[in-house]
């Protein structure tokens, strides 16, 4: 090989190496884009729901209450007959099968929606109103274009007759898309069109709140001790080793800890945000302590000396001067820790948060779900409608995480400015 050839070869190797590096970064970035795009394209439709416009006639024959009935009377009244009548009138049917097919186009909660409309305007007996009733999951998915209607009939959940009605509704402009209030207000449900993340949102909120209330003070106090007061001895070393190791223990192990100690021994109530919050706090604690200590360490010793020089006690110098200066960094670390806790799933599954909970929890000791667990639960469901619900839940989860991370970065930047 001549000298020139050799040099050329070396330069080619250089270019190749550089290319590998660049492509690795591109691959990683590309994956972020693919993932986000995949989730958003699947999930954005879940924020809207399909509704069918029907005419409701509150026939006095079919209902036992009068105008001016009390709220309790209306709530306990039976609107079943009116509902069936209304739905059947929306399209001509020939036999009982077709009737069933027609009714199946609407949500199973149609009766409740009609009752609610009546309640909102309590003098409708004998009157007709136009009402938008939520469509069933199948029609919802069909209308959003997620349903393959060109399959043969025996492999479809929607019959030819139902398709015919649907097409007719579309032509006569009876079908519309509205904001999906159920998705935000409802708890879990077996029917995708009724399922919502209300319960999971509240459950996650309580869990994270408890996690914050427990982990933040303990982490700050522990960091202050280790950074400012701890003598250099075996116990301190041991505590440090413990913290470093705990930060790397797989989260599922914390689930086992919670199962054995919190549920089996102390007998706290299963499936509740209380237990979830404590578990997450234990898990998050070391992950907060590490950045807390770093930000305490970053406060220059001159600040401490300055305070001591004017006669402050060690305690006063730490609590009046050092801690306030380290606070933004501490908060930023805490928020990052909480963001991780918010996305944590495995330990919550072990403490029973996978239970099917319809009601929205009103206290932290009610059974509940949480956002990531809801993602897990719905992703296991077969119904097509849950795919978009799952993706939309992920979108919500990711938005919270983004907001939290931006907040953390903002705090940290503000913090860094001070020492330059």
């Amino acid at each position: 090989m001549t000298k020139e050839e050799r040099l050329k070869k070396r330069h080619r190797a250089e270019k190749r190496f550089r290319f590998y590096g660049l492509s690795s970064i591109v691959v990683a970035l590309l994956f972020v884009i693919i993932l986000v795009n995949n989730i958003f394209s699947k999930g954005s439709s879940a924020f809207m729901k399909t509704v069918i416009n029907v005419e409701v006639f509150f026939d006095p024959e079919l209902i036992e209450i009068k105008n001016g009935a009390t709220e309790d009377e209306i709530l306990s009244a039976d609107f079943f007959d009116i509902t069936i009548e209304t739905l059947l009138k929306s399209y001509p049917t020939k036999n009982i099968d077709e009737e069933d097919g027609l009714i199946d186009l609407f949500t199973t909660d149609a009766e409740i929606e009609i009752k609610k409309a009546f309640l909102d305007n309590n003098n409708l007996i004998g009157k007709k109103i136009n009402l938008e009733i939520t469509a069933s999951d199948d029609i919802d998915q069909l209308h959003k274009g997620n349903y393959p209607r060109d399959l043969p009939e025996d492999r479809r959940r929607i019959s030819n007759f139902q398709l015919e009605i649907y097409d007719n509704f579309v032509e006569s402009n009876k079908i519309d898309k509205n904001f999906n209030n159920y998705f935000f207000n409802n708890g879990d449900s077996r029917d995708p069109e009724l399922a919502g993340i209300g319960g999971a949102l509240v459950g996650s909120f309580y869990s994270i709140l408890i996690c914050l209330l427990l982990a933040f003070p303990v982490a700050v106090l522990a960091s202050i001790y280790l950074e400012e007061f701890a003598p250099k001895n075996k116990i301190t070393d041991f505590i440090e080793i413990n913290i470093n190791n705990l930060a790397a223990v797989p989260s599922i192990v914390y689930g086992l800890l919670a199962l054995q100690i919190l549920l089996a021994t102390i007998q706290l109530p299963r499936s509740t945000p209380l237990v979830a919050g404590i578990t997450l706090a234990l898990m998050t604690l070391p992950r907060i302590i590490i950045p807390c200590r770093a930000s305490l360490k970053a406060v220059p010793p001159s600040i401490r000396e300055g305070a001591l020089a004017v006669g402050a006690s060690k305690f006063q110098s730490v609590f009046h001067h050092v801690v306030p200066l380290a606070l933004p960094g501490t908060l930023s670390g805490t928020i990052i820790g909480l963001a991780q806790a918010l996305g944590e799933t495995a330990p919550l599954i072990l403490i029973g948060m996978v239970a099917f909970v319809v009601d929205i929890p009103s206290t932290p000791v009610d059974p509940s779900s949480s956002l990531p667990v809801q993602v897990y639960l719905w992703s296991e469901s077969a119904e097509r409608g849950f795919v978009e619900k799952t993706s939309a839940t992920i979108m919500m989860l990711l938005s919270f995480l983004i907001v939290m991370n931006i907040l953390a970065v903002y705090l940290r930047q503000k913090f860094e400015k001070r020492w330059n």
Partner: protein
Amino acid sequence: MSDIKIKSKNLNVYYGDKQALFDVNLDLNEKEVTALIGPSGCGKSTFIRCINRMNDVIDICKVTGNIEIDGIEINDSNLDVVSLRERVGMVFQKPNPFPKSIYDNISYGPKIHGKGETKNELDEIVEKSLKKAALWEEVKDRLNEPGTGLSGGQQQRLCIARAISVNPEVILMDEPCSALDPIATAKIEELIDELKKTYTIVIVTHSMAQAVRVSQKTGFFHLGKIIEVGKTEKIFKNPDNKMTQDYITGRFG
């Protein structure tokens, strides 16, 4: 009188907005030792790093003007720095052996340049380089031990051997003795005297005595400008410039 090996013309160097060298014109003779002296921060290192284009490594560094080696412009974006550095070796202020064995430290350069095809050839190069760097006797029995385990002076000679191993024409030395004790320094100075038979050497030094001992020509830098150049004897006995006079007599400030 020997031929001119390296010639710089109107060399200007900037680190970002800050100019570090101003219109430096300097000729360096072949197979001779040129010493560069001057207070710290005056641009000596910056200058010699231009000769093997080590400043390319620093993002913010911009070089304008010309440097010729054997009449060929090297401050040219088309020039291949890899082959330039093969011809112009460098020894740094702090010994920086690689965390590898002594043998691998020396054979690294020849290997990447394809100079030793066989093990025998490599062995030969290693032995020759170490001998030239006056280190062979001390390390010949432990060529497989890490280079970082040697003493400071030995490490610096190892670095010199590493520079020699690719058979360069020029060797740049940036304060090669500043981290060494007097005995190690004396050894390196002896070595430089020997090496100038084969190589053109540029040495930056803080010690006037060292400049007098090893060099034939001396250049005095101040604030990024070359103030005076000439035969070492003349510079130290009878400088033309008042500033040079003050600097070499230690009255600088």
